[in-house]
């Protein structure tokens, strides 16, 4: 009897395996499209679409579990009667080629959306999902997952974890669905030998040495527990925040949202949940105009402290997963790494 926790998949068998998986579920993987963008996309024709495992997917898995805009309920108003209908149900989905940082982010979202009771639409999608990750042998340009403890390989959380050993994948199974899958398609795999183990370990060590950015995340988290951030840091950063919301939208762990009604006619409409950004001034403004947040000075305070101070205090680790997506896109050049650099290089007064 072979151990179903760890197996080897020859690269030749990848497409055949995915083809089987696709029979029972929607299959989503990073696809490089005609515009040169690598996006998680649904695979209709597995032979025609190019799965791209060499570039970082532009967006994380967040849009699939907490979409930019989703319908929470439909409503009707008839003769003063007001009623609501629940949204469509999720379908079984397998995600392939997910990076460690993005799965870590998903595990964080699981936590956020489990209290006080499980968020219905989020958990509906989550319960219908299986995540197959790909450990990172080579970090991307802006990555710093080592510093946030969310990569380059993972210990848990995945359905299956693939590690690229060159001509083959080292596959580890998580509990439940992942293990079942290996059992069902065992004939595609072979057992792990000592050579495979060694190579995996070697690659892991090498991967850790290849980060180009040295971001002092742990130091920053520690420092935030101990002392207040100097006002001038908030002001320097906030002056450069041009209110696009991009950092929050591309962030795999930014879960802030808004709920609004969208009328579709005089007597019906939909209640939608959509991404929101705590960096925007309307985020905290109350009806009547009063706003407890002074954006000109603290536009970024809430976001950075939430990630690095409060979540660290609550969960023992920051909710930044080091995916680096927010790094090059900030209009003012004031992303979370700028903050960490400012904070950790600043002399204590």
């Amino acid at each position, binding site marked *: 009897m072979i151990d179903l926790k760890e197996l080897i998949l020859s690269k030749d068998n990848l497409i055949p395996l995915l083809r089987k998986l696709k029979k029972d579920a929607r299959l989503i993987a990073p696809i490089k499209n005609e515009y040169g963008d690598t996006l998680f996309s649904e695979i209709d024709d597995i032979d025609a679409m190019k799965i791209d495992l060499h570039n970082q997917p532009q967006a994380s898995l967040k849009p699939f579990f907490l979409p930019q805009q989703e319908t*929470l*309920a439909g*409503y009707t*108003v008839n003769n*003063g*009667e*007001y*009623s*609501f209908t*629940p*949204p469509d149900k999720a379908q079984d989905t397998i995600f392939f080629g997910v990076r460690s940082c993005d799965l870590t982010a998903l595990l964080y979202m699981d936590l*956020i*959306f489990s*209290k*006080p*009771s*499980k*968020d*219905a*639409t989020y*958990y*509906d999608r989550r319960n219908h999902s299986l995540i197959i990750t790909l450990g990172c042998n080579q970090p991307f340009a802006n990555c710093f997952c080592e510093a946030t403890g969310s990569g380059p390989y993972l210990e848990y959380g995945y359905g299956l974890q693939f590690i690229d050993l060159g001509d083959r994948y080292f596959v580890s199974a998580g509990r439940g669905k992942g293990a079942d899958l290996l059992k069902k398609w065992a004939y595609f795999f072979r057992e792990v030998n000592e050579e495979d183990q060694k190579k995996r370990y070697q690659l892991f060590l090498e991967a850790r040495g290849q980060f180009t950015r040295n971001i002092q995340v742990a130091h920053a988290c520690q420092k935030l527990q101990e002392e207040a951030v100097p006002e001038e840091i908030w002001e320097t950063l906030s002056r450069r925040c041009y209110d696009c919301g991009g950092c929050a939208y591309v962030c795999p762990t930014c*879960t*802030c*949202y*808004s*709920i*609004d*009604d969208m*009328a579709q006619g005089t007597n019906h*409409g939909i*209640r939608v*949940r959509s991404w*929101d950004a*705590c960096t925007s001034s309307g*985020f*905290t*403004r*109350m*009806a*009547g105009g*009063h706003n*407890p947040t002074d954006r000109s000075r603290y536009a970024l305070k*809430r976001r950075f*402290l*939430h990630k690095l*101070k*409060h979540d660290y*205090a*609550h969960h023992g680790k920051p909710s930044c997963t080091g995916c680096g997506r927010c790094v090059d896109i900030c209009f003012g050049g004031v992303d979370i790494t700028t903050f960490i650099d400012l904070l950790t290089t600043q002399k204590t007064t």
Partner: protein
Amino acid sequence: MNNNFIPSPAKICEIIHENEQISTFRLKLINTSIPFSFLPGQFLMLSVPHCGEAAISISSSPTALPIIDLSIRKAGTLTNAMHMMKAGNQVGIRGPYGNPFPMKNFVNRDLLFVAGGIGLAPLKSVIDYCLFHSNSVHDAAQSITLLYGSRSPSDIAFQSVTSNWQEQGVNCRLTVDEADTDWQGNVGLVTDLLPRHNVTDNTTALVCGPPVMIRFIIAQLSAMGCQDEAIFTTLERHMKCGVGTCGHCHLDGKMVCMDGPVFSLSQLKTMDVMELAQ
């Protein structure tokens, strides 16, 4: 799994016009088989057709169930639309959410309520609850005093309620910022009324109103010797979910909708809140 965001329809049974800006909407759930209970200080997410939702604190006492009162001031789109509604119309509610006032702590205490404007709404729930239990040996408060400030005589809300309370032994002191010719009562801010009252070891203060008022009253109460643990307020923040996930009411590591909206001063002092800012 229940969809956390689908409200239950409720009917507006009665609308009490409090003043030009504030009305109290008396609601009843359409489906009476839905179990519903709450404690003073908790709030609901109110849905008004096409307007979305807003967090509104319940102004009636749980002892008045199945009646649920929401006292609402015209402030934005939703509240203005609410004021256009008529008795018999339906709205949606979900909740209750948030931490209530620690009612058990109020037994045998001298309760001092300080409110400004619509801020009386959540405190009204507490006062009604206390009065309901005033004959019970185990649940009654020692005494109840209310200091209530309004901008002008025509802005005074809950007029019949306060006179009713007066009859039931509540020491009600009303004041207005600007008097008109008919006004016989106090003129000035609530902060002017407060020093005329005794604060003892047995005083528990409940404060609700505009942030500036809260700030000054809390400072005064502390100066008068009131303990941090015996001063309570309820914070108002923009909220979207009520269940601690949307992030809007995030306050220095806490969620006002889950960890509040009722906070004691000792809790507030550990947080960075504008109500205490200098």
